[in-house]
């Protein structure tokens, strides 16, 4: 049975694809705008809990890079218990203003999973939703399934998430996908 939340947190009519803001970026982005922004805290991981309606074997992880790249990132996926399924490991950020792909073969189970991203510096940028700061409460991030963890590069074997806690959060756009064929 498809979860009542499937369409909001993961599926939304698509298959084999999970993204950090899928289904909710219109809530986060001011006038549906994305912008290039620095990673605010080095080694502080960002988590996005999404619902995967159907198991699939991913082929790639990706991040939407901004106008400046620097250092290394790690992208991972965790199961419903917070145990890491797979991650890219520390990977050099490369390619400005484009999607950076990293091959990663793993079976993503159906159900709740957590996508994770961390960058090891505050010079590199990613595309982020242009959040309207003045009226977007920080607890809204919690409600939408976002969290963070400090000193998390490379990504840990298990999650210990905490609330984002800030009034302005530059949440990168990243995800995992099974590409054709």
């Amino acid at each position, binding site marked *: 049975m*498809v*979860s*009542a*939340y*499937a*369409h*909001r947190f993961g*599926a*939304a*009519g*698509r*298959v*084999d*694809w999970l*993204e950090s*803001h899928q*289904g*909710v*970026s*219109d809530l986060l*982005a001011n006038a*549906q*705008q*994305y912008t290039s922004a620095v990673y605010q805290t080095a080694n502080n991981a960002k988590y996005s809990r999404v619902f995967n*309606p*159907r198991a699939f074997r991913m082929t*790639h992880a*990706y991040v939407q890079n901004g106008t400046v790249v620097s250092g290394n990132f790690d992208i991972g996926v965790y199961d419903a218990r917070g145990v890491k399924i797979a991650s890219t490991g520390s990977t050099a950020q490369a390619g400005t203003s*484009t*999607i950076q*792909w990293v091959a990663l073969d793993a079976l993503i189970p159906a159900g709740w999973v957590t996508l994770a991203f961390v960058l090891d510096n505050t010079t590199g940028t990613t595309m982020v939703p242009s959040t309207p700061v003045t009226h977007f409460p920080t607890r809204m991030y919690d409600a939408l399934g976002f969290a963070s963890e400090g000193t998390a590069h490379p990504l840990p074997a298990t999650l210990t998430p905490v609330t984002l806690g800030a009034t302005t959060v530059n949440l990168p756009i990243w*995800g995992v*996908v099974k*590409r*054709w*064929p």
Partner: protein
Amino acid sequence: MMSPYEDRVALARPGMLWSTMGLLDKTDYLVNTSPIDTVSVGANTALFVKLYNPRPFRATTMFYYSGTTGGDNFDLGIYRRNGASLTRLGSTGSSSVTAGVHAEREPLTSPVDVPEGEIVLAFVLSGALAEFQRQDIAAFEDYAHLWGWGQQASAFPLPATATPVAATLISSGPPILGIVDLAFD
């Protein structure tokens, strides 16, 4: 139980699947203009798009957005994954393209019971003359991977079994097509 968000993100209309469903936030960000005319990606080269159908329904009609120039024939179809390939559940069969910008719609040769789960819609033109309307999205190659677009050459009319590869011919944006449970008119 129906999610209160279904209408918002994916099922604005029950019994309908279309190539841009669930991507409202993405298209707002990426799309430069309204859909525009483009020539065929190549005679007999079919385009495929993966979708997720949350509820079974019986489909009777498919559509795509045709462009200003007619000529050639089109075929629209729906597939289900069967291992490493796709098995066709139904299609419109070959039909002539009508000149003029509109949603070209055609009944399926037989109604199709669209199952829950992964579904693949397909579109092909028989020549390189007729135009279709595409979403105007620059550098679409990367998004094609995310949005589930594939392609296959020598695929007119649409084959009973298909083995698409990653799409590389829609770098300026994808066509718009869909399948519905109600016949127009």
